[in-house]
């Protein structure tokens, strides 16, 4: 049997000045060529474990480590990131924050140049990795002209160019649209299968990766709560950690079916075997429109020396409506929200607002400028954000989900708005936080939320607007738009042929089928 690539025995780690350890008694072994998914809620220790595997912890971030953690025979306590980089490639969450140079070719070459490789060897490796990842057309582009998905592929190429045995990825799809996210996961699967690269990927949306995975490590409060096959993990999550269960696993658990399916294909197969063909219950119609909270009439946005971002958009949002605005990256979602708020003016057309408009932009940190959380939103805002006990905390020390909730309250500024606009508010959020955010959105007088997350959209929206090339290409109830889509569709919809979008709804239909 081959030597394990990673071996941990009783590994613990605490950040400097942290009240409690971030990693506790980690015991694990990872084999060469394995594909491992790291699951867990926000703050459970996934990122820290990945950072320990590449040596950033403890060498770069500081802190106290105990126990043993070896990667390719090197102890991470004795060997720093430079030495471990010979066997590890790392891709982080935000591609924008890990790209170092201005040109794609230079960016991919950098790790090999650091190693003093000859120019010929560098050129060959860059060509090969670019071809393998299908980015050869990007080699002469500037990094600041790439989309998020392209940038993430470039980051992946830079991590792989020296052919590491172990590839570590920290939520690499969280900033990407569903198309780019799925493409990245397929690429990882190919790397793993064709070249034997061991992959460890931390993801909140585990349903994307489970079909490719050999194994799942679920982190709970800094410890490994579950170390099992994907099927074993889903069974464990259904009993012990519901928010970690995939929508399909939740559907099966609620309907009393088993075992939990790892993929849509497995779910469809199980339903077919059980002769269950759920049908949508009639009566899913749009609520009658109330007073207009926001109205866009024939709105165009044409950039000077740039593209046409919006093309004659007509959109009426009524008071009490919750609209999910969807579409691939670059479809014009963010521009539409900025225009609705008045941050930019349309080049043609009119925007009418039924009162004040609140806008939460993509980066919640941009809203947080004070040293104390209470100074940002006041005690009532802090309470609405669920941070009543964190008044003295520095907003930068809050978790991603906490910062998002606080930033939303800052943007809402105590209420009184006709409509609230939220731009990609679930990036990097776990399911528990998303559920809480969906609840908060339902409390708002009216909301338009730009999102790539179909499950989240189905959870809060009573209307889905799909943008494509700056035009509205679909506008209907979630069932109409998300029920029959390919990419813009939920896993439950795919498994039930669009009869249901969410696990609870699907389970009710399945229960009715079973009763019949």
């Amino acid at each position, binding site marked *: 049997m081959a030597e394990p690539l990673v071996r941990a025995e009783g590994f613990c780690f605490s950040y400097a000045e942290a009240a409690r350890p971030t990693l506790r008694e980690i015991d694990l072994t990872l084999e060469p060529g394995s594909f491992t998914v790291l699951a867990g809620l926000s703050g459970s220790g996934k990122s820290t474990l990945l950072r320990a595997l*590449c*040596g*950033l912890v403890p*060498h*770069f971030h500081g802190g106290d480590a105990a126990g043993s953690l070896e990667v390719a025979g090197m102890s991470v306590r004795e060997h*720093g*990131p*430079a*030495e*471990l*980089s010979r066997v*590890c*490639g*790392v891709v*982080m969450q935000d591609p*924008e*924050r*890990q*790209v*170092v*140079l*201005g*040109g794609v070719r*230079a960016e991919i070459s*950098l*790790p090999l*140049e*650091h*190693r*003093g*490789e000859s*120019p010929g060897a*560098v050129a060959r490796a860059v060509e090969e990795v670019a071809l393998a990842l299908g980015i050869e*057309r990007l*080699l*002469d*582009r*500037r*990094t*600041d*002209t790439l989309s998020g998905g392209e940038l993430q592929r470039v980051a992946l190429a*830079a991590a792989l160019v020296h052919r590491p045995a172990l590839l570590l990825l920290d939520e690499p799809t969280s900033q990407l649209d569903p198309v780019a996210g799925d493409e990245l996961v397929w690429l990882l699967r190919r790397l793993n299968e064709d070249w034997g690269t061991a992959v460890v990927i931390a993801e909140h949306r585990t349903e994307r990766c489970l079909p490719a995975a050999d194994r799942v490590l679920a982190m709970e409060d800094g410890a490994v709560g579950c170390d099992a096959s994907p099927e074993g993990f889903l069974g464990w999550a259904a009993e012990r950690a519901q928010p970690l269960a995939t929508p399909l696993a939740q559907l099966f658990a609620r309907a009393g079916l088993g075992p939990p399916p790892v993929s849509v294909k497995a779910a469809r197969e199980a339903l077919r075997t059980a002769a269950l063909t759920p049908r949508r219950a009639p009566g899913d119609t749009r609520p009658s429109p109330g007073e207009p909270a926001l109205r866009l009439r024939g709105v165009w946005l044409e950039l000077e020396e740039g593209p046409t971002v919006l093309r004659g958009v007509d959109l009426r949002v009524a008071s009490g409506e919750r609209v999910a605005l969807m579409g691939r990256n670059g479809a014009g979602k963010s521009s539409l929200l*900025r225009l609705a*708020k008045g*941050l930019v003016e349309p080049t043609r057309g009119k925007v009418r607002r039924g009162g004040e408009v*609140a*806008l*939460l*932009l993509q*980066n919640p*940190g*941009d*809203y947080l*400028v*004070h040293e104390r959380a209470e100074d940002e939103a006041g005690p009532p805002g802090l309470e609405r954000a669920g941070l009543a006990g964190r008044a003295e905390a520095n907003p*930068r020390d809050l978790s991603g989900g906490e910062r998002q909730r606080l930033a939303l309250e*800052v*943007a809402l*500024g*105590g209420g009184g708005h006709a409509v609230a606009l939220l731009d990609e508010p679930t990036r990097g959020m776990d399911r528990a936080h998303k559920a809480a955010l969906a609840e908060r959105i339902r409390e708002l007088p009216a909301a338009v939320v730009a999102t790539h997350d179909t499950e989240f959209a189905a959870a809060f929206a009573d209307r889905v607007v799909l943008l494509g090339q700056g035009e509205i290409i679909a506008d209907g109830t979630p069932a109409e738009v998300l029920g029959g889509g390919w990419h813009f569709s939920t896993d439950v919809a795919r498994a039930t042929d669009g009869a249901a979008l969410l696990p609870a709804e699907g389970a009710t239909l399945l229960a009715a089928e079973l009763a019949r």
Partner: protein
Amino acid sequence: MRLVPVYRPRASALHSARAGAVSGLCAALALTGALFENPLVTGAVIVAAYAAGAAAGVGKEMSRVALLALPLAALVTLVNPLVYSEGDTLLIRGGDFLGRRWDVTLEAVGAGGLAGLRVASVVMALGLLSAAVDPDALLRLFRRVSYRSALTAALAVRLVPVLARDAGRMGEAARCRAEPPERLLVARAALAGALDRAVDVAAALEVRGYASASPPPRARRPWSRHDVTVAAAALVVLAGAVVARLAGVGEVEAYPSFSVALGPAELALAVGLVVAAVAPLLGRPARLGVARG
């Protein structure tokens, strides 16, 4: 509108030539601008830089550089007569103030104009460098000399626009608040965000083996036709400028009375500069093998 151009790959001989050759041409033009006060020569440098940029497809960028150079030239033109009051031709008789006389002479105004033109010629040459040379390739030239400094410079080149974008975003977020915070608070938060970003980039460098980095071996790449022609143009411009300067071509006397040499030698130098700078970019050979991807 960006006055300082950002490098974008284009299908031109200038963009296809190696960074060393193109920087050599731009440096030679800048040096010529710095060596001469003669308006025919500095004007020729401006024309040469603009024409080379236009032939390379960055004419619009060079026009913006000209917009940057123009106020600088005007400023120098205006300041010079206030600093120097030498010259035979009195234009404005000023009074005594702060212990000196404030007379404005025609010669000082003329000398200011020439100095402004000189500054503009250097700015145009550097603008061409910024528009036509890949900063990564340029900094790679220096990595063998000082690897870490060159990499730090490369990082700075990449991070400056990123941080500017961050600051712009924070400004927008401030506008979205019910009560916009004080500018100082936003600036402080933007600075903290820049530090966070710097830490992330440092971590990315660490996991790519930066700590054990060594200067890369010298790259031996065959010289393309564009490498050769642009390097030759750089040498011609440099040699022409140095020889002409040593030979006393383009002499200018500002004080006590204004005299500018505008003879055949100056004209030949000016025409030669423009032709040398633009020649590698004209004709069918200049269009061969320039497309990318």
